[in-house]
């Protein structure tokens, strides 16, 4: 059997100029259940799918409040995610101790990315196996960032990570141009819709998703289950009443999305040429 000679530690390059250990860490993000984020001019909404490990267990928390103005949603190794969000909380507390003002989101994200980068360049370390969607508000407006294990970070209008996130991404790509001027409630609705795309047949219930909001005049907080269920109910009934014909459409849409989702899941192994680090 073929065995890769260049993937036994992070600091070894492959002749093609790739760092396999880092790429494996990026794969870990895709294994985790999906997390999505989207933003308008004034608000950012994070959402995630809660998947329990077994019938008997509860699910793990995937959205963390960092400060009143920052929150994260994670996909991948939850344990690593917790460590990183603890780091972010500390940075926020220290900054506001010194300056009595909130830490700018972009700066925290760079610090976080630098921390992840160090793990890609030390033989005795392991890259973090977690992707973070960082939502935040500062004097330059509302922001949504994606931080990955490679130490790369990107700012987005809307993004999705984790398993079957491609379906959510497709949904968000279709609609993102309207997000800038969206109201907070529409943004929440879109977040739930995007999450539904990743579910692949499973029915959407408030018990399997978590939604969190941060925005102008609204400190970061997780919406309680009742509220989320109410929103789900309103648009489920609306869809049934107004246009029963759309139902099958939606179903096919879901199937199409599911196909894309599976394609994305295999993506890692199929297109060998492209380095996933670019994502």
């Amino acid at each position, binding site marked *: 059997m073929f065995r890769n000679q260049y993937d036994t530690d992070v600091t070894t390059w492959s002749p093609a100029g790739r760092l396999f250990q880092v790429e494996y860490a990026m794969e870990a993000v895709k294994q985790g259940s999906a997390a999505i984020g989207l933003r308008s001019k004034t608000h950012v909404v994070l959402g995630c799918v809660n998947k329990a490990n077994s019938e008997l267990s509860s699910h793990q928390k995937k959205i963390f*409040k960092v*400060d009143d103005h920052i929150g994260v949603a994670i996909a991948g190794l939850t344990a690593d995610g917790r460590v990183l969000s603890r780091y972010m*909380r500390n940075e926020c*507390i220290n900054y506001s*101790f010194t300056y009595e003002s909130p830490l700018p989101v972009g700066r925290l994200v760079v610090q976080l990315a630098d921390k992840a980068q160090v793990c890609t360049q030390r033989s005795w370390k392991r890259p973090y196996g977690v992707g973070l969607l960082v939502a935040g508000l500062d004097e330059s407006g509302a922001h949504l960032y994606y931080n990955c294990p490679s130490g790369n970070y990107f700012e987005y209008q809307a993004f999705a990570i984790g398993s079957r996130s491609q379906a959510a991404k497709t949904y968000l790509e279709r609609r993102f141009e309207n997000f800038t001027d969206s109201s907070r409630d529409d943004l929440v609705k879109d977040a739930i819709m995007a999450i539904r795309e990743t579910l692949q047949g499973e029915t959407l219930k408030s018990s399997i998703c978590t939604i969190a909001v941060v925005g102008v005049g609204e400190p970061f907080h997780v919406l309680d289950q009742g509220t989320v269920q109410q929103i789900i109910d309103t648009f489920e009934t609306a869809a049934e009443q107004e246009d029963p014909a759309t139902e099958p459409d939606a179903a096919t849409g879901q199937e199409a999305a599911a196909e894309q989702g599976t394609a994305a899941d295999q993506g890692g192994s199929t297109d060998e040429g492209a380095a996933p680090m670019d994502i």
Partner: protein
Amino acid sequence: MPKEQANWSPYDNNGGSCVAVAGADYCVIAADTRMSTGYNILTRDYSKICKLADKCVMASSGFQADVKALQKHLAARHLIYQHQHNKQMSCPAMAQLLSNTLYYKRFFPYYSFNVLGGLDNEGKGCVFTYDAVGSYEKVGYSSQGSGSTLIMPFLDNQLKSPSPLLLPAQDAVTPLAEAEAIDLVKTVFASASERDIYTGDKLEIVVINADGIRREYMDLRKD
């Protein structure tokens, strides 16, 4: 060369008085807003009252820089607590934390004299009173700061709380209604500012009850 200021001290006393009164379902915490150094008034509008949690408020006098450091430290600790426990700290828990925080600097103390007031887990008013190095006691009412020598005996006289030596222990909360307690606090500060030069300008009163936190102000002597 110059030696006029050779006797540097890391401490200053910025004066001010604090009072807290606990009732059956409320707590009143009050302090004046004057900040002084020696015979100088630095500012007439500096709040000595700090909200530490939803149902917990601290009033502090003494050395302002230490007080500020203490308040910021407690605020940070409370944030960490909220992250870890997903709830507000209770007033008795904050009382213990404050004591530990003060004692941690036992050999280079925070020069701050605090009263902590709020509602306990049953919604009953509670007051904790401290010295600068962290020893503390749960009481029904208390006063700290430059005017405490004038205020405390007056409160003792008016509130006639049951002796702490009684067995079985009696409840320390005052029998007054909320409005009466606020009136008493106003009287007490109006009196203290007659004789204590470090107390005056304005009185800030914080009332905590089941409805939440409310603030009131009253003018005091400015001389």
